[in-house]
């Protein structure tokens, strides 16, 4: 058949069973087209066929015969005008389509994986509607999902591009407030270093890589939640033509268990061993094609002795529950103790108690997991993977191979979203075992189904809160009891549930606390890290309770929070004295001020949260709800928290900063670049960033716990300063001046009125036998373990949010209209990236409240396709008003602390509190169920 692709005629014969996306990606090398779900749900694979956007994952290639296809790779050539964009970005954006330019300038690009689909969908829209409204954009992009949830920026970028296309004028830059205390680079608006490649389709994610001789790996999953593997016959699979290897547990040369903290996760379950969840692996296959590998899986015969699954953490703690792991079902009993709660309740004038439930949720990053292992000629193993912890991957892969760590090199690739879900081992070890066995590269790609079944989720929890207060609202005692379902394996369950527990009494002062958490193993999929790290769950419980308490006492819900809010000088529930950087009250005040401005009721506290009907639609009730939160920055609890970074100066005057820390879309690379540019007083474009390579970049530690800006940021900062000092001392010696007289300005070092191109310093340093680079290992301030009463965390971020909802009292349907979010981030280093984090965090928090429900029944996953697990779309995105609060923390780089998680945490309780305010139904179980709301409303007395 013949078809026209990106303006060129192509002759190609369709293959049996081939979809257009396979033709484009696999045979024509157009890897800008992405596969996120392969089930018509996510829109990442959108291409334009005969002028209309279609999903290439469910479009037979044969159907494209004679048609005209455009992919992201051809978008720039469709630009009717080549617009200048102003001096600063001129070079960067030259030749791009205005849509691409606008996406870069507006910060619409985060992880980038959905961007080709967004751009092509948007292009099709503008082709038929050059002047779209916000509603038109939302209608057209409804099913083009972005898990970073850059929806507001995507919308603004499309509007700006449309205007540029209509007027022929350059794309208008976005109006985003800079930091309140901007420096030359820090705190100013800067585009991502990887933004351009992400809008042209040139950005390479793991599945875009191909190596000569590469095989395709697949994993035989147990498919049962609990049992003993009794028989395993892989002989038929081994005999299938095209199969290069089938490995089972006995073929693992090294350690057979892996894990991030506790090595309890079998890489392959052996005969006579226990299957603990449906995603457990029993055999792995490498074959010449993915189809053959899949066929081989069907030929593997496995027999199990079925055991009754343990399906919830409360049941798992029962004394007669069978033990899932040798040491029992209790992963950890976590305790927080302060004062004497019994005395506290006795002294309280009001005591409330309520139990809340939260569901499992899935990260649903649009890029599914993919690992490629490649044996090298010198006997090493390279692992290409998008991973949040490259050095932990290296360690775990090496352990399984029985090799020293240095023999393994993890080469991190761009990540299409992580959110905590790419911290654990998924295919890395399996790919390496197969590659090692056959001596060829092996790609192991999860499809969406496998991704949903296998990787760790957000913990489902049961949280009971008992709260005692005085009549004036002063909190006296809080007792919490949490059950966390950590599923089959520990992953980061202990850490997550520790955070849930220490944050379970909210960002408040109180003399008496008793918190007990039981992190329990069950036969559900494992639970681990997920943006919010346990605090998402406990904030829902405690913030619901704060509203219930305010109502019970007849007090203003804002005042009661303000009154008890942590402040400088407070002692937390774990006994930590807060000596700085507690911006909670400012967050509260700023949100309320903005609410009052929007409502225009002259600041009447009763009016703020009143239920209102919608004119002309009396069945629709609207109200605002309010919630606050805090979240630690960094590992804390006595864990050594360090990161290394290296900064190098090159002869062309450019700089490079290197650390293994992970870029998962959140914008670390921008922050690192800005820090080094700031320290050398250079334009950011002069600074390259290399991350996630265990051979080339020093260990930045795990990308988790909102720690990268602070910890790796400081490593980069001090590495830059160390190099700057080394350069200064070289020049000082050479020109015989004190080092402090050496200055750095754009591209130059200045000594004694003499200007020297920065690149020339390289030669000067080398002449002295010095290398023009500096490595710095930064150790974050020491923390103390829980229970010791010291500094549990070196910094906390704070937030307040107000959400306005509309509830349909005839159907129970609920939507979020507006969210005001104030976040104390210490200092906004990268305001454009921060905005993306805030908006994305709010939308993810809204998903947690309204749309997301990962359902496991009797250990079996019901939500095993993206069609059954819904993440928010642009249609559901509320208007988001972001307020940046900056209470610097002394040790943070320029005062910054964590951002990535705090932005998402108060959203859920702000929404559920708003639902209560609107219609009087208290949601105590997530997600919000419209049916329950309706039945509660209609059954109300």
């Amino acid at each position, binding site marked *: 058949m013949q078809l026209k692709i990106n303006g060129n005629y192509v002759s190609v014969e*369709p*293959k*049996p*069973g*081939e*979809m257009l996306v396979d033709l484009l990606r696999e045979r024509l090398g157009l890897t800008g087209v992405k596969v996120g779900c*392969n*089930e*018509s749900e996510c*829109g990442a694979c*959108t291409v334009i*066929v005969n002028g*209309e*956007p*279609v*999903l290439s994952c*469910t*479009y*037979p290639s*044969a*159907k494209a*015969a004679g048609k005209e296809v455009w992919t992201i790779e051809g978008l720039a050539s469709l630009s009717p005008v080549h617009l200048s964009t102003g001096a600063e970005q001129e070079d960067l954006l030259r030749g791009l389509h205005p849509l691409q330019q606008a996406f870069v300038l507006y910060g619409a690009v985060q992880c980038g994986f959905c961007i080709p689909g967004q751009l092509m*969908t948007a292009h099709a829209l503008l082709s038929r509607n050059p002047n779209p409204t916000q509603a038109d954009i939302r*209608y*057209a*992009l*409804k*099913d*083009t999902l972005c898990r970073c949830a850059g929806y507001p920026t995507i919308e603004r970028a499309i509007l700006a591009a449309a205007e540029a296309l209509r007027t022929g004028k350059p794309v208008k830059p976005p109006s985003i407030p800079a930091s309140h205390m901007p420096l030359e680079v820090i705190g100013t608006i800067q585009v991502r270093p990887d933004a351009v490649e992400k809008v042209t389709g040139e950005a390479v994610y793991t599945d875009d890589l191909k190596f000569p001789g590469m095989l395709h790996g697949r994993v035989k999953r147990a498919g049962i939640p609990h049992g003993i593997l009794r028989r395993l016959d892989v002989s038929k699979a081994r005999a299938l033509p095209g199969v290069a290897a089938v490995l089972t547990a006995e073929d693992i040369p090294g350690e057979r268990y892996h894990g991030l903290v506790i090595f309890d996760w079998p890489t392959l379950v052996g005969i006579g061993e226990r299957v603990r969840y449906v995603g457990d692996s029993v055999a792995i296959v490498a074959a010449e094609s993915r*189809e053959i590998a899949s*066929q081989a899986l069907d030929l593997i015969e496995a027999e199990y002795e079925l055991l009754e699954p343990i399906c919830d953490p409360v049941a798992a703690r029962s004394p007669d529950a069978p033990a899932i792991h040798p040491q029992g079902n209790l992963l950890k009993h976590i305790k927080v103790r302060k004062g004497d709660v019994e005395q506290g309740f006795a002294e309280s004038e009001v005591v409330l108690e309520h139990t809340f439930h939260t569901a499992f949720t899935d990260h649903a990053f649009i890029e599914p997991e993919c690992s490629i292992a490649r044996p090298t000629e010198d006997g090493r193993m390279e692992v290409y993977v998008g991973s949040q912890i490259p050095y932990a991957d290296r360690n775990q892969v090496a352990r399984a191979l029985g090799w020293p760590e240095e023999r393994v090199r993890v080469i991190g690739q761009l990540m299409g979203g992580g959110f905590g879900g790419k911290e654990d081992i998924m295919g890395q070890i399996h790919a390496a075992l197969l590659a090692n066995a056959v001596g060829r590269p092996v790609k192991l790609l999860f499809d969406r*189904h496998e991704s949903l079944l296998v990787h760790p989720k957000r913990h489902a929890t049961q949280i009971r809160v008992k709260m005692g207060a005085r009549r004036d609202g002063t909190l006296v005692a809080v007792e919490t009891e949490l059950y966390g379902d950590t599923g089959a394996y520990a992953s980061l369950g202990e850490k997550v549930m520790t955070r849930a527990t220490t944050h379970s009494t909210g960002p408040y002062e109180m003399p008496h606390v008793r918190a007990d958490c039981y992190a329990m193993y069950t036969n559900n999929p494992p639970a681990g890290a997920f943006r919010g790290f346990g605090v998402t769950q406990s904030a829902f419980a405690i913030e619901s309770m704060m509203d219930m308490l305010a109502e019970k006492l007849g007090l203003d819900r804002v005042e009661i929070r303000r009154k008890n809010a942590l402040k400088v000088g407070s002692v937390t529930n774990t006994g930590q004295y807060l000596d700085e950087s507690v911006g909670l009250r400012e967050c509260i005040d700023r949100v309320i001020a903005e609410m009052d401005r929007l409502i225009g009721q002259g600041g009447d506290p009763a009016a703020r949260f009143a239920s209102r009907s919608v004119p*002309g639609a009396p069945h629709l009730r609207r109200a605002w709800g309010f919630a606050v939160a805090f979240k630690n920055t960094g590992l804390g609890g006595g864990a050594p928290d360090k990161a290394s970074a290296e900064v190098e100066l090159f002869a062309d005057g450019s700089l490079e900063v290197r650390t293994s820390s992970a870029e998962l879309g959140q914008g670390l690379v921008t922050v690192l670049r800005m820090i080094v540019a700031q320290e050398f007083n250079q334009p950011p474009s002069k600074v390259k960033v290399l991350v996630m390579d265990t051979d080339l970049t020093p260990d930045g530690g795990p990308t988790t716990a909102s720690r990268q800006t602070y910890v790796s940021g400081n490593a980069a900062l001090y590495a830059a300063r160390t190099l700057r000092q080394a350069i200064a001392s070289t020049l000082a010696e050479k020109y015989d001046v004190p080092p402090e007289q050496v200055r750095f300005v754009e591209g130059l070092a200045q000594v004694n009125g003499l200007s020297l191109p920065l690149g020339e310093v390289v030669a000067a340093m080398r002449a002295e036998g010095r290398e023009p680079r500096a490595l710095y290992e930064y150790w974050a301030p020491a923390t103390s373990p829980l229970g010791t009463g010291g500094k549990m965390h070196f910094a906390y971020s704070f937030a307040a949010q107000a959400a306005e909802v509309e509830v349909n009292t*005839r*159907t129970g*349907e609920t939507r979020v209209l507006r969210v005001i979010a104030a976040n104390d981030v210490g200092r906004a280093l990268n305001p454009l990236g921060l905005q993306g984090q805030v908006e994305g965090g709010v939308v993810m928090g809204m998903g947690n409240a*309204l*749309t*997301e*429900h990962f*359902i496991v029944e009797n250990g079996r996953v*019901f*939500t095993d*396709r993206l*069609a*059954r*697990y*819904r993440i928010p779309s642009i249609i*559901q995105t509320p208007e988001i008003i972001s307020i940046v609060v900056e209470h610097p923390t002394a040790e943070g780089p320029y005062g910054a602390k964590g951002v990535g998680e705090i932005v998402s945490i108060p959203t859920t309780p702000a929404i559920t509190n708003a639902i209560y305010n609107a219609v009087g139904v208290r949601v105590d179980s997530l*997600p919000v169920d*419209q*049916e329950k709301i*309706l*039945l509660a409303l*209609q059954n109300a007395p």
Partner: protein
Amino acid sequence: MPVWEKYILAASLQEALEAAANAPGTARFIAGGTDLLLDLQQGRHPPVHTLIDITALAETTALEIRSDELFIGAAVPLSRIVHSPVVMEHAQALAEASALIGGPQVRNTATLGGNVCHALPAADGSIALLALNASAEIAGRNGCRRAPLGELFLGPGRSALDPRAELLTGFYLPLKSSGQASAHRRVMRPQGVAIAILNMAIWLARQDDLIQDIRIAVGPAGPKPLRAVQAEDFLRGKPYRQETIAQSLDLLLAEARFRTSPHRASAEYRRRLAGVLLEDALQAAWQRAGILSGRQGTDRS
């Protein structure tokens, strides 16, 4: 094994029917393939030898008025239906229903024929067509026949068409006369599968203050898309009044078999929504019919 061996882009109806009859293994007609391709990929449908694409046929892609009827080809993409002025004019419920099926990209390939052939009891397209009294045109090797839409459904996911010998080519809908109008409404939930918890389409003819004639289709209210004939019979010839509608709801609830579907909706919730949709769809259709016959009321929907 690939999920299909051969993909034929049929150039004529004859070629399509012959290809189906002569395929060496199983053969399936395919239009947008929205459901079929996923079923094949995800193993819910066994691999087939031949897929016969019917999206390039003149017979299946026409959308036009043919004497006193509106013809909509089975392979017309939903996006074309959504934006078609004649569909809006004569079958507004179908325009509304089509805009709710899938997402924007899916609607560029998905077809009305596919929506009907999939035979789900709450398919928005089927529900709207049923209320609009559509008939199906079916091509076989011995020529074309017409059948009332309801006859195409055997049960959930089971179509009455012979997959080897019969090809659904399109739908005929009566043209609208003065005083007639239609509307489609549905309720979804934000979690889980994007299938309506409940949907309803209503066509009515209005004469002054009387509901002269009415058709109500609702789903999922049984194994097949349901016409609520008892409610229709009750409402026919009666004035448009709240209490009349409330009484007809009782009849609808008696004939609809609402059940509890796990993770989607309880039967009880569906029963309550049925009242909401009946009121809303009826009101929308009533007002539209009023405007079109020059009667009072504005279309607030």
